[in-house]
């Protein structure tokens, strides 16, 4: 969807390795390849869902795009600007338009600051000097996320989890961003509240025309909110397609397994695919295709060569030897 529209974010060959230093005499003992060559693009007003299990690198990818983590290599083009090459002081301007909402609303708000103060801080940082204007904008932001403007003087502990997440969203919206990276924004919430926050995020998107990169481990949530869906496994994107195509015609065996692992209120129609074992350590990922150790369709070639990430149907990219 929206592929013809202008692309707001382009990521090419992005890598983020963490050095592991261990031993009595500290020395470099290895590298965790948290993000290992990711390329993707997000169009204006588009929602890209990014799915994967814990440890697959999806949160690191989000943080690296924000440059909250320094990338090891690769390109991040946001609005025509290469984020990787920006100097620290120029990042400030960028981050007004590129924002992040974190998973845990509890730890992302300062407990000793009123929520109004927390939202206002974003405006101060971005140079809104007039206090009266700041107050107006804080009140407007609170209303936008469905909170009474009268709550500005309250502290985070006076709010429920869902309300705190609304405050996190209000703060991200402070400088009218074009792209919000939402890192598991509803996983810490109860289902009845989760629906409220998802609807709120959809409403804001429709009204303000901003784009989301929506990171989640929950495919049913991603299906609800996304235009396109990407699946990550051990630092790499293994499948990327339009939502409809993705759910109707999943190609990668890992995607198949993920989809079949989802419990549904309706009776299951197909035999469930049970994956063997756990996700291997990213410190020492398997050779060849990283998924071959758990794959139910593994072939002789899989442990030997790494499949290329290529387009096998219009707008449908897969990294798997089955489709080579």
């Amino acid at each position: 969807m929206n592929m013809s529209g202008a692309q707001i974010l382009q990521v090419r060959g992005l890598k983020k390795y963490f050095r592991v230093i261990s031993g009595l005499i500290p020395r470099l003992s290895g590298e965790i390849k948290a993000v290992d060559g990711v390329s993707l693009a997000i169009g204006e007003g588009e929602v890209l869902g990014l799915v994967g299990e814990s440890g697959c690198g999806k949160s690191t990818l989000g943080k690296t795009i924000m440059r909250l983590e320094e990338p090891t290599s690769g390109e991040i083009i946001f609005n025509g600007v290469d984020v990787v090459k920006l100097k620290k002081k120029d990042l400030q301007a960028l981050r007004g338009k590129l924002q992040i909402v974190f998973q845990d609303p509890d730890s992302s708000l300062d407990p000793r600051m009123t929520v109004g103060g927390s939202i206002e801080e974003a405006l101060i940082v971005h140079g809104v000097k007039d206090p009266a204007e700041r107050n107006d904008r804080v009140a407007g932001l609170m209303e936008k996320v469905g909170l009474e403007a009268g709550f500005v003087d309250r502290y985070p502990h006076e709010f429920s989890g869902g309300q705190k997440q609304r405050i996190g969203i209000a703060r991200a919206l402070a400088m009218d961003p074009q792209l919000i990276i939402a890192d598991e924004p509803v996983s810490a919430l109860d289902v009845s509240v989760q629906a409220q926050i998802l609807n709120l995020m959809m409403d804001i998107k429709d009204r303000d025309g901003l784009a989301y990169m929506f990171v989640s481990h929950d495919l049913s949530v991603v299906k609800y909110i996304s235009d396109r869906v990407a699946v990550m496994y051990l630092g790499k994107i293994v499948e990327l397609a339009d939502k409809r195509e993705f759910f109707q015609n999943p190609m990668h065996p890992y995607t198949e397994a993920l989809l079949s692992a989802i419990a549904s209120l309706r009776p299951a129609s197909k035999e469930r695919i049970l994956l063997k074992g756990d996700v291997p350590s990213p410190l020492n990922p398997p050779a060849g295709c990283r998924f071959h150790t758990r794959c139910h369709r593994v072939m002789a070639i899989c442990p030997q060569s790494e499949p290329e990430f290529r387009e096998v149907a219009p707008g449908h990219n897969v990294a798997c030897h089955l489709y080579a």
Partner: protein
Amino acid sequence: MTADTVLEVKNLKTWFYTRRGIVKAVNGVDFTLKRGECLCLVGESGCGKTVTALSILRLFDSPPGRIVEGEVIYEGMDLASCTIQRLRQIRGKDIAMVFQNAQSALNPVFTIGDQIVEQINAHGQVSGADAIAKACRLLEEMKISQPERALKMYPHQMSGGMKQRAMIAMSLSCDPCILIADEPTTAVDVTIRAQIMHILQELKANRDMSIIFITHDLSLVREIGDRAAVVYGGKVVEVDTVEHILESPAHPYTIGLMRCLPDISTDSKRLPSIPGNTPNPIDMPAGCSFHPRCQEVMEICRSKDPMLMNIAGVHAVACHLFSDAGGKN
């Protein structure tokens, strides 16, 4: 109490006396557990489902917690009031528990084998070799590859899924007749969750054991449950067979909860949601605890708390819409 009932919880109230007030975590829970059945306790965080489970074996911290009212009848004995010595003989042997977070439930300084053998020895005279052999068999039943090797591992050497399976193995070590599983799949990924659900389904089929499965996820209920009890505000608000409750829920909360779950098999444009937040257990709303969020609230709901009443077969609901006083029926 009928012959095939193994556990009966009657009007159970577990309150916590804190500085900020009395937290009425469990506030009048009723249910029965039948032989060989899997009963699911479903509810959101803070509804009292975990404290209900802990109360069965009195595993909560006391003080501040106290069972202020109610009975937990197991084999003709009230576990809520029996001596702690008697209860210790039942914990782990007759009624075993699997906790949500295997990481913190396992002891980090003992091997998995030691921890399983410890539990086997605590409840019977078994020789060392027999106990180890049994521990090994249990890990095998949990589909842990190379069980002999796993016995010698410390918890930190295992992955999250393995730890959870090791803990299930441990809970089965004395062949309990009731297994309480408190959100056993919440802390693990979807593919691991599928593995653990598969193991639990096998246990249910192969062992003569009743299971209380606690979850916040209604979609897991279909996979394992025979009956489901929906918990809200420290009370059971609806009980029915799993098929029936998922097909035609009656309580407005159950209806809302099912509607707001994004379902992979449908294409929805907008998710229905339940307005408001879950109630604060220190300051429960008067009357029906769900009334501030209820779409069908009536005058009586604000003042009078509805009783859990049978409306058809095993289907019971606590809602004035179905009581004589409120009167839909």
